[in-house]
């Protein structure tokens, strides 16, 4: 780790880079941002903005469940419940009823309520409020390592499922007629998104995680004309705004997550105005 710290210090001779927590936060965001940028492209293509929002909310119940079940590492219950929710929401979404968004919305509210109920029992919610707004400055080297391994695994899975997902995003029936197992691929993707969202939630926060997933891709979509520029722009937007927001937050003394999302929103609106005709 100190090797990487040294590199950061020599490459980035700025005041903020002197702090260990900033170096950790920088490493975390350099991993999380591209991950979200990549996954976001498909999430937006497949109209999953609502899905990931509900997924983020379910994190609170995930933490609560972990406490109820006496699991020491809350990450385990968080990821497990996230995966379960993702599969459930995907199933409801695929039922295709007009009411599926209502059902997802109800699920999302219940997940928040149950989480709050359990975590606030006895008046001790404040120690969990970090989950709401996130705290990227407290990310630890082992968490960074975990995120890095996730990045590698996700990129490998991504390469395998990309074409299938793209075809599904164009038209599900067409994909099925070409022999694509649509349910399987959608589920794999939902699970991947769930794992990434849950692992990043401690750093980014329940309230902001969805913007990190959706905004870079939505921005790229404003300008991109083909799948390559779409992906590239999404990743670049995510990285630039992620790092930019983090550094800004250091100097202006604001929440890192909020600064990152503000940067993303700014770029989104600019591209929205100048978007392709």
């Amino acid at each position: 780790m100190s090797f990487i710290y040294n590199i950061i210090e020599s490459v980035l001779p700025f005041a903020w880079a002197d702090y260990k927590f900033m170096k950790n936060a920088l490493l975390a965001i350099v991993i999380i941002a591209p991950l979200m940028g990549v996954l976001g492209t498909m999430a937006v293509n497949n109209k999953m903005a609502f899905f990931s929002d509900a997924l983020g909310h379910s994190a609170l119940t995930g933490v609560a469940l972990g406490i109820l079940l006496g699991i020491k590492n809350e990450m385990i219950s968080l990821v497990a419940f996230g995966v379960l929710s993702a599969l459930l929401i995907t199933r409801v979404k695929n039922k295709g009823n007009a009411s599926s968004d209502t059902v997802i919305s109800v699920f999302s509210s219940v997940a928040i309520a149950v989480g709050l109920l359990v975590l606030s029992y006895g008046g001790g919610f404040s120690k969990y409020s970090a989950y709401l707004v996130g705290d990227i400055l407290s990310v630890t080297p082992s968490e960074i390592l975990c995120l890095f391994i996730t990045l590698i695994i996700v990129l490998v899975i991504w390469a395998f499922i990309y074409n299938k997902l793209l075809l599904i995003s164009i038209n599900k029936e067409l994909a099925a007629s070409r022999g694509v197992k649509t349910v399987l691929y959608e589920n794999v993707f939902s699970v991947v998104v769930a794992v990434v969202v849950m692992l990043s939630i401690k750093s980014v926060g329940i309230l902001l995680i969805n913007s990190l997933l959706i905004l870079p891709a939505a921005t790229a979509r404003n300008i991109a004309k083909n799948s390559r520029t779409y992906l590239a722009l999404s990743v670049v937007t995510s990285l630039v705004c992620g790092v930019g927001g983090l550094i800004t937050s250091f100097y202006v003394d604001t929440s890192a997550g909020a600064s990152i999302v503000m940067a993303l929103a700014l770029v989104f609106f600019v591209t929205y105005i100048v978007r392709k005709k």
Partner: protein
Amino acid sequence: MSSENGCGLCKISVKDIGVKKGKDVLLSSVSFELFCGQLTALIGVNGAGKTTLLKSILNEIKHDGTVLFESHHGEKIENITIGYVPQHLDFDRSAPISVEDFMLIGRTSSPVCFKKDKKQSKAIDEALSMVGCLELKQKTLGMLSGGEIQRVMLASALYPLPELLILDEPVSGVDAKGSEKFYEVISDLKKNYHIAIAMVSHDFGIVKEYADNVILINKSVLKSGSVDDVFSSSEFKESFFYGLD
């Protein structure tokens, strides 16, 4: 059925297709043969089971019966390659997916957003030229007209080259010029490739002009044969012009 087929050597046998939904019988023992180099039109009134039949052939729904390919060596293959052009592609027109991306999806297993290799790119050029859409290669799918989309869909359905091509009212809602261009391509295909074509259509004018054979169905095969045979049959009149005399 008429035995005058384009190559006269290969055929696709659809045998005893039956589909039930609950108590309702949607199709019962539908059998027919599709010949290489020929366009067979499937016609029938609304609710006759045309789409159900296509879905059975595509193996998208549970059904009885088999679809078998018999080559001229007498070789029988059960898993044939089927190309499918749906009636109307319902998709998000703002999606940043280019025609090139779309064409590549079925051809490569590496993500289509990566750099394309030259061989693939050339093959796509050829496929798009065949349907007269080469100049659309770099365009976003959402920018194409209805007729252009159908031709791009056709081009992508032809890789890998299928034994059977299924068209489900391929140009309904496309303007006359677009429709004509589409059928020009289909006629070319018939002439130059070893491929059987099945098409669902409501447009008897088009059926008359382009189809070699016609199969009239309503839950089962009512009548099949040449266009003239079927169109002059009593079954045809009863199906479409009942009580109109």
